[in-house]
């Protein structure tokens, strides 16, 4: 009697362990399957690295081609002195929907907007107190996990003129004598006004 009862008990333990193992396998496979469906073509993963590389080189290429004709420097100086912001920028001071109406803006629009790529443009430079300052030129929201960054450095000289809304150089206002211009003189007494790094952060949507 006692031996039979003991055997039944042992079989019960075995069944319980089996049940637990089966439940674990089931839950694990369900969560694994769920993760597979969560990987969409837009998810950040190592498998889309070459797409990110392409995007990075595209961003760098846009800036290189624009800067070959001085367009990047002009985009930084595309400043509305009376409104204290970039020409035709919304109240926030930076562009959101449409890129600026200059060579840089048009090149970004042609290259990235038409391929459903979202991007932000930041300007990084030396601030008035010698720290690193950051200004938004164009902001379209928080980048996703697979965003890439391309950057290019531009030197702005003291007597470089501000650029008017129509793209011509302003005859009187320069980066040094404009009172509302965002870029401080980081090299007081010297000919260089500031060195600005233009950063394009791009991601697929």
């Amino acid at each position, binding site marked *: 009697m006692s031996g039979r009862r003991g055997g039944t008990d042992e079989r019960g333990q075995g069944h319980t362990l*089996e049940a637990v*193992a089966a439940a674990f*396998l089931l839950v694990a496979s369900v969560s694994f399957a769920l993760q597979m469906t969560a990987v969409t073509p837009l998810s950040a993963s*190592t*498998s889309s*690295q*070459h797409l990110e*590389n392409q995007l990075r080189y595209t961003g*760098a290429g846009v800036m*290189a081609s624009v*800067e070959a*004709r001085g367009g990047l*420097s002009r985009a930084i100086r595309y400043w509305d002195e009376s409104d204290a912001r970039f020409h035709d920028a919304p109240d926030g001071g930076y562009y959101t929907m449409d890129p600026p109406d200059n060579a840089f803006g048009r090149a970004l629009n042609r290259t990235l907007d038409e391929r459903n790529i979202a991007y932000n443009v930041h300007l*990084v430079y*030396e601030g008035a107190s010698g720290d*690193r300052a950051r200004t938004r030129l164009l902001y379209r929201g928080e980048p996703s996990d697979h965003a890439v960054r391309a*950057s*290019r*450095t*531009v*030197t702005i*000289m*003291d*007597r470089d003129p501000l650029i008017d809304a129509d793209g011509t150089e302003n005859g009187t206002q320069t980066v040094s004598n404009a009172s509302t211009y965002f870029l401080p003189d*980081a*090299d007081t007494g*010297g*000919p*260089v006004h*500031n*060195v600005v*790094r233009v950063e394009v952060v791009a991601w697929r949507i």
Partner: protein
Amino acid sequence: MADLRPRDERGQILLIAAFTLAVIFVALALVVNSAIFTENLASQGEVAGSSEALTYQHQVRQSVTEAMAYANRYRYSNPTSSVQASVDALSEQGAHQQATGGQLVHVGYEGSRSGWRIADNTSGGSTFENESVPVSDQNWQLAESVDRTRDLEITITDESVLSGTKASAFTLEANESTSEIWELRLWSTGGEVVVDVETASGRSGECRVPTGSPVEIDVTRGLVDGQRCHALTRNGTGGDRMWWGTGVSSPYDIWIKNGDQIRGNYSMILRGGSHTGDGLVDGPDSGDDPFRTDAMYSATVEYLFRTSQVTYETEIEVAPGETP
């Protein structure tokens, strides 16, 4: 007992099968992942990041170009110290910027070659005559025995002044003797401005831009209104060289002919040679006549780029707007 045994055995088989399947899945995942990783590495181009050294070198070159243009325009009395100060500033600030990306960069001023600049930047433009020349102020010698020329730019502000025929058109000439002459003629057909070039070897070509002020001609870079002009670069794909001064051995003289047949501004930076004694006003001048100032022709900077994987060091010579 007897009827339970087969069920027990089936359970074991199921368990073993499940484990085998699990191991196969893991192995497959490993194979797929390593394939992805290989593709990942293959698509990275170059792993060390040496292209960044060259990209930043290009940016340094552009910055030094800006610094030289600034010095030649506003600090002509001592362009060297101005360029030196600019290079120091851009080295320091650029180093701060690049340090955030794990890159150590240094740019240092090494030396320069001096030159001189001729310009006529009368506001609104003027004819290319020179009233200080006693004999003929339409046809006059701009410079004598010049070794090299860069940043030669002409802006036409009023196209109605341009001659209607090639024979009487404004001509810019580089000549070494009566046989070695490179000529640039500018005239107008009414609707178009014609840029006509004839090299010393007798090759000729022209390109046209629609009328619409101002027309900017960058002679040494071969650009008209920012677009490449084949008459100033090459005639046809792989064809004859047409660049400024082709076929004229240096040192050469630079002449303006029919200077009354154009209205605009011009500027150029020269190395070697001199201006004809009575020809040019010294220092910047807002009057109608062209002037000369000292200028920096080219600058040499040392460039150092270092990351954990790459060390790159070179000297960069910057002479913007030279013919290739």
